[in-house]
């Protein structure tokens, strides 16, 4: 039995469907991530799980028991808010111990578990400080410890890293993964950063306009996006409009108008239908012009632009039909920003295993 079962849950605000017929089932011990653009309903879904909103239709089950009518303070679900929501008049220790205090634990037990929690998030030396004396990362860790200390069945994290700078985000992301593994509590993590989602999750749900577009493991979501939205939202992708020429058992032939034919792995498609072919920049190879074709798909183009990012350089390659593909190339040789100049004729290609066909 799944830990949390979300069955056809909808929540509207006036005319707006903030959450639209969402079905999810989350397993115990999972690090589950909700990702999607701003306003797609992530926070509303979390508030439904925490009990601050009730669904208009549908049902939530925790451990097989319905959550209908169960107040937020009665649910074994704790939240780490985006703004941390630390109590400004309480010390770090008092903040973290608050859930135990409310649950009426004995002072002895509180002292023990507080010490453990402080150690867990490396804040033992800050126990007596007030929230306003802490850095952003430290506040974030206090909020995390406070959410974990009473061992909820489920910890909800609403963009907990949004207020931190890039360097700290990376560090705390790593800490978060380790922490979740250590405590074994199920996390539902909300972010609108697809990179974060890919880095931390066991499974990712991609949300768009209130509904779920795809739920899968990170490598599935990235490698086999189910539709244009997912392909575009998770990572960078080149999308080429195509027409299906042949939908065989061993291959797919797709026509790109004005460029040529793409050979790809078999997929659900009907001959003659239109769709898009999605391929990632790192799957593209750039080959000097005139060199003999050695890839399944190889087309002529010109270098239109390049963008030096340090570890890699992004090249924009214009195809004869005007479409522009982004290709990524690692800068393994130090001190060299680019290998190709603007206007240089090249070939761009990829293996048939790369890229996916997406139906419209």
């Amino acid at each position, binding site marked *: 039995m799944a830990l949390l079962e979300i069955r056809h849950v909808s929540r509207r605000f006036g005319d707006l469907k903030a959450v639209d017929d969402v079905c999810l089932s989350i397993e115990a011990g999972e690090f589950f991530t909700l990702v999607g653009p701003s306003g797609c309903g992530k926070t509303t879904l979390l508030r439904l799980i925490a009990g*601050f909103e009730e669904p208009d239709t549908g049902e939530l089950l925790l451990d097989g028991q319905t959550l209908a009518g169960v107040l*937020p*303070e009665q649910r074994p*679900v704790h939240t780490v808010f985006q703004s941390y929501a630390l*109590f400004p*008049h309480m010390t770090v220790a008092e903040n973290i111990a608050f859930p135990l205090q*409310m649950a009426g634990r004995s002072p002895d037990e509180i002292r023990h578990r507080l010490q453990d929690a402080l150690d867990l998030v490396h804040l033992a030396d800050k126990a007596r400080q007030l929230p306003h004396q802490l850095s952003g990362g430290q506040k974030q860790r206090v909020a995390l410890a406070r959410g974990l200390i009473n061992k909820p069945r489920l910890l909800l994290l609403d963009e907990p890293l949004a207020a931190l700078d890039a360097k700290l985000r990376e560090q705390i992301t790593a800490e978060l993964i380790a922490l979740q593994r250590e405590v074994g509590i199920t996390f539902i993590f909300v972010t609108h950063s697809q990179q974060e989602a890919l880095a931390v999750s066991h499974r990712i749900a991609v949300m768009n306009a209130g509904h779920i577009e795809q739920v899968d493991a990170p490598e599935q979501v990235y490698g086999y996006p189910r539709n244009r939205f997912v392909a575009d939202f998770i990572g960078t992708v080149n999308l080429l409009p195509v027409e299906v020429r042949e939908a065989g058992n061993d291959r797919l032939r797709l026509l790109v108008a004005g460029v040529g034919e793409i050979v790809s792995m078999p997929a659900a498609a009907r001959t003659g239908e239109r769709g898009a072919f999605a391929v990632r920049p790192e799957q593209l190879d750039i080959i000097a012009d005139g060199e003999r074709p050695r890839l399944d798909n190889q087309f002529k183009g010109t270098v239109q632009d390049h963008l030096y990012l340090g570890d890699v350089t992004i090249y924009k390659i214009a195809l004869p039909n005007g479409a522009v593909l982004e290709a990524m190339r690692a800068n393994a040789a130090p001190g060299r920003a680019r290998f190709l100049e603007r206007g240089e004729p090249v070939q761009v290609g990829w293996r048939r295993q790369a890229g996916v066909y997406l139906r419209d």
Partner: protein
Amino acid sequence: MRRTKRSLWLWAAALAVYAFLYVPLAVVVLFSFNDSLLNAEWIGFTTRWYALLFDDEAMLGAAANSLLIALIASALATLLGTLAGIAMQRWPVGVLRCLPLLVLAPVAMPEILLGVSLLLFFRQVLDLTLGLISILIAHVTFSIGFVAIIVRVRLAGLDESIFDAARDLGARPWQTFRHITLPLIRPAILAGFLMSFTLSIDDFVITFFVAGVGVTTLPLQIYSMIKVAVTPEVNAVSTLLMALTLSLIALASKLAPDALKARA
């Protein structure tokens, strides 16, 4: 060049306004120490007017009344105003939507209007004998709004999500109030109490209408004395009242600086 000229004008205007406000007060204070029965010229320093004050039975009685009324009225106003402030901030829905207006109206209402209407209400509707009780009720009435504003401003300045967080972490509503809301608004409650206290102890107009014949407060006593003449004793009692009021306001503004700013 032009700028300095303009700012010079600004300074002069500001100075004039402050002088207009504070010179009369300074004169009162000064003459309360003047060794002359007339408020005309400076003769020499004395504290005998203050000594006289503490021998004046009527004055002491009025002061005792004022203190008693101020204490009880501000305690009641603080309790009710705090509840109103919380209600206005947390549940701005339904009938409560007009609560702010109802609570705040007495703050903006001309005092004389409030005085007359309270008098009519006490006499015609309640058939109450005017005295301590009627003054008390009147003072509570005009103080509630001030307390409510101060408490509400304080609440509005807090991160809304901490109340959700408290619930989320297992606090029942009264636990949230006890552990989160109350400690956080305590300075505002105290400031509200001090404000009510100064309002009550200084009030003349409304008290004048609802006091009846038997009971006198300090401002009423001062008024009845200056009907005869502005004696140095009046200067002395005014100085004391001023000192008390100013120190209470200073304390209140220290406790809830944002709240008192928002009042203006």
